[in-house]
């Protein structure tokens, strides 16, 4: 339990610096921040003195309705600490800084979030669709996405020159 208290102290201190909110959900600490603070938050979480959350376990977009969230699941290979960081992203202009400068592992995950939600990750080295084809229109995991009828969906895809 000691580890958890140490982590909680660190997270609360950090929350004050980045105007975040701390919650607890089924035993996991959740830190909610605005998108503009995300790099500062993640860097600080990576360097928490005795309880560093230095392993990017997962990164995913979530459509909440009036805004998007980018959810980072942080953990560590050296201890039991876990932290969930949520960045609030504006729905109209979904832009957030890329975490690829902190963890190389964010590369594919951010591409997936871009592919499915259209969240732009500023500073990503190769922000292209990862699953869907490049001329796909719309972002299918958004709640307001309307799937097209089958006749429209079955278009023949034209190969691009650089493929």
């Amino acid at each position, binding site marked *: 339990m000691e580890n958890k208290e140490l982590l909680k102290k660190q997270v609360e201190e950090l929350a004050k610096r980045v105007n975040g909110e701390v919650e607890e959900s089924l035993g*996991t600490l959740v830190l909610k921040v605005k998108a503009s603070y995300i790099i500062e938050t993640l860097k600080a979480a990576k360097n928490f003195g005795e309880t560093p959350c230095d392993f990017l376990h997962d990164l995913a977009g*979530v459509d909440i309705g009036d805004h998007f969230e980018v959810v980072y699941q942080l953990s560590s290979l050296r201890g039991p600490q876990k932290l969930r960081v949520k960045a609030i992203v504006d729905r109209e202009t979904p832009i957030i800084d890329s975490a690829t400068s902190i963890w190389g592992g964010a590369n594919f995950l951010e591409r997936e979030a871009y592919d499915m939600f259209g969240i732009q990750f500023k500073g990503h080295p190769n922000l292209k669709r990862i*699953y869907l084809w490049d001329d796909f229109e719309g972002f299918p995991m958004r709640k307001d996405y309307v799937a097209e009828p089958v006749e429209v969906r079955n278009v023949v895809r034209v190969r691009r020159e650089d493929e």
Partner: protein
Amino acid sequence: MSVDRTEELLLNMGPQHPSMHGVFRMVVHLEGEVVTKIEPKLGYLHRGIEKLAESRTYPQFIPYTDRLDYLASPHNNFAYVLAVEKLMGIQVPERGEYLRIIFAELARIASHMVFIASAALDIAGWTAWGYAFRDRERILDLFEMTAGSRLTVNAMRIGGMIKEPPAEFWPALKSFLDDLPEMFEEYYGIYLGNEITMGRLKNVGILTKEMAENLSITGPVLRASGVNYDVRKAEPYSIYDRFDFEVPVLYGCDSYDRNLIRLDEMKESAKILRQALRDIPEGPIMAKVPKLIKPPAGEVYHRVENPKGELGFYIVSDGTTKPVRMRIRTGTFINLQTLTEICTGWKIQDVVAIFATLDAVLGEVDK
């Protein structure tokens, strides 16, 4: 001194290529025969499982999880039902827990057998392929006896297991466990201890500890790079804290160690299975769950140690029968990020061998 350079050559491997383990495509940039860059192209098997989850009820989604890592489907069921149970606060009966462990560890052995078979095949070891697939058949028979299907087993339910295994399951499992040590010796003798295998794989495709941590690598690939981390030990779920087993760690960081670690993990799984078989109590296999599964509003993240990496489910619920968001964190999708780093500087035949050691299953990569 002038250096001769050749024109860069682009080579498309896949999606229909015998060594791609499914419909995976990579664009290999070559200089002569040496790889300078690899671009993985995903999405040929993308079915939008995360999107489908939003229009299915919680129990309806269990068969979809089978189609993620289809070589170890009980594990995917396991991760999903654990996440929902954590959200709802359901306690599974003892016998149900033991049966889940038995299925999960059998699936781990089956998955690693396929790994040994396909990795051997990728460096032209046809004989080892036959041995490993022959033995995996016995595990699939055990699944078939209980759940009726062999590959997409769909064995677990929210609150327990689908069915009690039939009477002939137990002697069959026991005789399988008795034969396992001999099988491991065969795999070692014919594949891993083979001089050609060692020549092809030793010191090929180095993935250092620092690289692995930075790239969020999990599972056997991480442990073959010298990191002692296994969710079953670090954050024991279900009843894994009751079993006595080791986490194999190797420090070679090369393709050979990524092969060898699978053999070691199978041995540990066999240990767990023997203990589970010894300790399994009598009793019910299903908890009392409501007819209509309606988790309370909230969110949960649960991860398990899949044979190929960590599998995590992040479920956001709004208190209705369908989830708002179902995020699936799959191991091999993220592990594939290393491909370009560990293949650079090697030749095409090494790329095939290195790719095999990442043990990618496209159902899991493309979701």
